């Protein structure tokens, strides 16, 4: 019996565990460590129309139970992703979720239109929540009407279902979720990082060259759980949950909160084998907890 196989809009997944965008590059580094076909899916690094170098270094700073990053959407640009990265990933039997980013609506539309035609791209993840770029990113993810409008425009051109990645840096996450659902989103992914900052003890200066960065890692898990709990009861589209997942127990907790699949982010940096370990541990944990299938866990906290 396969306790882990699930179906979501555009996605038939062997298991509900995938690496989160920005924490896995385009898979090459991990491809030399284990078989990427073992993953449920892969959320590739955010792609923009033009190549981006990203922010100056230092780009990461550690915190207790987490890390701040301000990479700044470094990526080789749409052409290279289409011509080199996605064809390379096609050797694996794993659906790709392409994270789409940009500075303007037109940018998002352009990337979405073209990248959604790649044969192994089965869904898009609309990145309206990156806190580390001056234009675009989170600017689209904090005003419901703006997020809705962008979702609508991207939906019009995308050949595959569109998931919208929500930012936790808002007062009312449910309002944001409903807005993108109205805009036609097929699913949600949440949460992106929380905006944070660290200062150097000796100089008093910010550690990150970008001054602020996105907080990820186990420390943000309760925030993610709370937001998924709230949103999942107010929308009718599925949620891919993320935020501090590092073991099978965390996955179950996200499902209880209302997620239908999960993504693993920062844990890949600490243990590059985190995803396959979680996938391996899940069936036994489900057995112990008395579930025949992982989908039975979704929304148990609602009752």
């Amino acid at each position, binding site marked *: 019996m396969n306790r882990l196989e699930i179906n979501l809009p555009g996605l038939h997944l062997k298991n509900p565990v995938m690496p989160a965008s*920005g*924490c*896995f*590059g385009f898979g*090459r*580094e*991990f491809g*030399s*460590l284990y078989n990427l076909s073992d993953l449920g899916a892969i959320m590739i*690094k955010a792609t923009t129309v033009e*190549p*981006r*170098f*990203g922010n100056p*270094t*230092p*780009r*990461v*700073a*550690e*915190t*207790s*139970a*987490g*890390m701040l*990053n301000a*990479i700044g959407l*470094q990526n*080789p*640009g749409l052409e290279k992703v289409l011509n080199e990265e996605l064809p390379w990933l096609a050797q694996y039997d794993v659906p790709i979720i392409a994270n789409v980013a940009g500075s303007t609506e037109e940018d998002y539309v352009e990337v979405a239109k073209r990248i959604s035609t790649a044969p192994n791209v089965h869904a898009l993840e609309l990145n309206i929540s990156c806190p580390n770029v001056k234009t675009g990113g989170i600017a689209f993810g904090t005003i419901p009407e703006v997020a809705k409008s962008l979702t609508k425009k991207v939906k019009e051109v995308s050949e595959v279902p569109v998931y919208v990645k929500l930012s936790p840096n808002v007062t009312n996450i449910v309002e944001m979720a409903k807005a993108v659902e109205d805009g036609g989103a097929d699913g949600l992914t949440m949460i992106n990082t929380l905006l944070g900052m660290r200062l150097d003890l000796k100089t008093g200066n910010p550690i990150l060259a970008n001054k602020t960065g996105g907080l990820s*890692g*186990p*420390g943000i898990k309760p925030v993610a759980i709370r937001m998924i709990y709230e949103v999942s009861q107010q929308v009718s589209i599925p949620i891919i949950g993320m935020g501090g997942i590092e073991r099978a127990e965390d996955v179950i907790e996200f499902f209880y909160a209302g997620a239908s699949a999960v993504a693993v982010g*920062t844990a*890949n*940096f*600490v*243990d*590059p*084998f985190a995803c396959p370990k979680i996938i391996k541990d899940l069936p036994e944990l489900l057995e112990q907890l008395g579930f025949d299938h992982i989908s039975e866990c979704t929304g148990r906290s609602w009752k």
Partner: protein
Amino acid sequence: MIVNENCTIVSQKEIAANIYELILRGELSAEMKEPGQFVHVKVADGHDPLLRRPISIANINHEKKEFTLIYRQEGRGTTLLSTKKESETVDILGPLGHGFPIEETEPGETALLVGGGIGVPPLYELSQQLVSRGVKVIHVLGFQTKEAVFYEDKFMELGQTFVTTVDGTYGTKGFVTDVMKDLSFDTIYSCGPKAMLKAVEANYAADKKVYLSLEERMGCGIGACFACVCHTADDPTGFSYKKVCTDGPVFRAGEVVL
């Protein structure tokens, strides 16, 4: 191949002021070949600190399946690591990165190994491998002060060794470059503070083969997180980049922007 293993501590001791020598035993030592590679160390279980610490490999002993890390106890992570005792285990990921190309110095030629402070350790494995190849080695090792000097005897066994200290309390007063100008050699291999690497590059890269090992804050250490990127020298403000963790940490001088 990159391996993740809990390695056993053979010994750990403070060999200079706040400088620790940690000898570990593990099967992953079999994967260690190039001098100048590093391992990514989880200094403690749990979430604080969360990330690993990159530490260069100072010595490889394939026969005993051991390897040596030398690090400066400074922040929270290295302080925790320094409290670990013999027979305890340490979670190691490695070996990582590309090291020094020993084949760039022919047998019979002379290599100058220039280290600064906590950049000295990887030069020890490098020097041994160069000597095995029949290369003559000269070492110039720079430290802040007398109490910070380590491994001078070990380097002396392999070749001529000069020590400098900034405050003049040991060896020649000044910087490594003050000693280098009087030496003749074919190649330079260097690891140390960025100011030192810049000086070495500025003075010698034009007419010598110079290889520099860089240090940068890292996240994953395997090339996935893009924390440790630097611009390439031929495109200093553009989109080309190198990752210190996987393309480096060793680069030929002039390859990347220091």
